């Protein structure tokens, strides 16, 4: 990759329509080198379509995708020479063993020497804990074993860009943990672009996140920024007593932009949106303590990725950073 272009993946207005279905609608993406890029969205959001467009398996209806500075349509084979790809549901030739599958995959990239190829195959088998099943026919493999083999074949060429479509979908918690570890380890050498439904995994390993919904990009940015929340800073307060008086006082504060209230048994729950976090931090609790109320809980709202995901998917918010 050239020094000038620090983006491994760039898409401009990338769109795909299947008959009357708009699978992807004007997608603009930029993926930095050596990042772990989480690609999120509900089923049918356009994640797999995007990946297939990047790999040249399907053609865009409009727009372009550039990988390593090369066009995904005209330079597809050269791009694929530097990519490792794990499909959502990995399918391999059933007449091959795991070892044969990895050797077969490696031979698309390497002419030899045979010894080095065999060593790489062994390394990959060990990496995904399939060494003891290396010479078994793939026909006998479980879903999890196929997934692990898929992860191994995607890395056999030490790719510059690793594209993983739902890598942990059919793995047990231990398998998932191993995949995340492998991804973290590979970050030094590769850029990792992966789609998933498992938000917890994204939060653990990704540095940048994109959320797609109905073919459109609805959120994009570094994970810390997305987790900061799009609703601004909110304090959650549970209190009892003469809450009406306290509510009037808090509402009149110049740095309070809104209060949502709800009731849980005899407890009032407030969500106080503030515009000045420092003023809120130093004054809000003190002010309440001086009122005829009992404050049972007081905290600043922490977002996790699931909150952000639900907000943008259900709320239709656009939180591009």
């Amino acid at each position, binding site marked *: 990759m050239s020094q000038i272009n620090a983006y491994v993946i760039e898409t401009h207005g990338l769109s795909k329509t299947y008959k009357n279905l708009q699978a992807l609608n004007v997608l603009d993406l930029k993926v930095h080198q050596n990042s772990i890029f989480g690609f999120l969205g509900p089923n049918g959001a356009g994640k797999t379509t995007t990946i*297939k467009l990047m*790999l040249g*398996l*399907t*053609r865009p209806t409009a727009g372009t995708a550039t990988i390593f500075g090369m066009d995904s349509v005209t330079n597809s*084979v*050269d791009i*694929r*020479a*530097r*990519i490792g*790809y794990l*499909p959502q*549901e*990995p*399918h*391999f*030739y059933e*007449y*091959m063993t795991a070892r044969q599958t990895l050797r*077969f*995959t490696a*031979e*698309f*990239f*390497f*002419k*030899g*020497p045979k010894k*080095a*190829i065999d060593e*790489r195959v062994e390394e990959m088998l060990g990496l995904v804990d399939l060494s003891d099943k290396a010479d078994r026919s793939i026909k006998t493999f479980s879903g999890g074993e196929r997934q692990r083999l898929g992860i191994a074949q995607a890395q056999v*060429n*030490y*790719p*510059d860009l690793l594209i993983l479509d739902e890598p942990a979908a059919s793995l047990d918690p231990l398998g998932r943990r191993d995949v995340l570890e492998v991804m973290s380890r590979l970050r030094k*050498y590769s850029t990792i672009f992966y789609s998933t439904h498992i938000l917890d995994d994204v939060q653990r390993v990704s540095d940048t996140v994109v959320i797609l919904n109905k073919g459109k990009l609805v959120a994009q940015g570094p994970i810390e920024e997305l987790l900061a929340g799009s609703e601004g800073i909110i304090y959650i307060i549970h209190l009892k007593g003469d809450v009406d008086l306290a509510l009037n006082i808090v509402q009149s504060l110049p740095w309070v932009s809104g209060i949502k209230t709800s009731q849980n048994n005899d407890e009032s729950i407030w969500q106080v949106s503030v515009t000045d976090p420092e003023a809120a931090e130093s004054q809000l609790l003190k002010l309440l303590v001086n009122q005829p109320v009992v404050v049972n809980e007081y905290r600043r709202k922490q977002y996790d990725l699931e909150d952000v995901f639900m907000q943008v998917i259900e709320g239709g918010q656009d939180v591009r950073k």
Partner: protein
Amino acid sequence: MSGNEAFEIVSERGWSRGLNTMLRSGLARWFKTRMWWIQCLIWGSLVGSILATIAFNPQPPPPADLYMIFMVFVGLFPAVGVVIIMQDALVGEKREGTAAWVLSKPLTRPAFVLSKVIANSLGILVTMVIVPFILGVAIITIVTKSTLNPLGYLEAIGVIFISDFFFLALTLMLGTFFDSRGPVIGIPLGILFMQQNLIGFLPALRYVLPWTLVVPIGNTNPLAISFLLKTPLPQDQLITLAAIVIESILFVFIGLWRFNREEF
């Protein structure tokens, strides 16, 4: 790709990138699995058993009739196997997702299609043409105590293979147009078994269908028998042979063009 210094990197460019790898895999599927001997067993036993039953009868038919029976079994029926095998080569791979998987590697689409043509042609030639042919000719030679011209032997094998290749290329081409197995199997098998009726209905079709290469019409030997027995070659059958070769090549090119537009 750091960490790959120990390797000799594939540097091929152009349409043939990945062809060698796919070809090795395709040939390994034929000759390093049970496939080759299962096919040899099916077609060898079909031709051998039927021919042996007829030939070793106390009152065997004349040699000319034996050759005709032999040719129908070795020249016509294996085409059914060719269609079944070839529909799996493309439609099977598209449906199972293996085509999308290998095409995510540095492999061109022409290389993918041509690897299917070449590997399956060789597998079919050996297991469905040469082995049953040798077996059948051996039985006839023993019964009739005749000797055959080795060149005629090879020419006859070539004609039978061209007839099979027509169905191979046709099925492959259809596999690039359809995603379901029905039409990809049904159309070639329909043509295979309806050829005689179609030619009866429109005699000019004998020039574009491979029927007369392997099956007699009236008292005329099929072209493969004419080559085998070194009898005069009917001109119209030579035209058919040339037409079948051209059609087959055309089918492959159409298949290549269509597969290039395929979306996964």
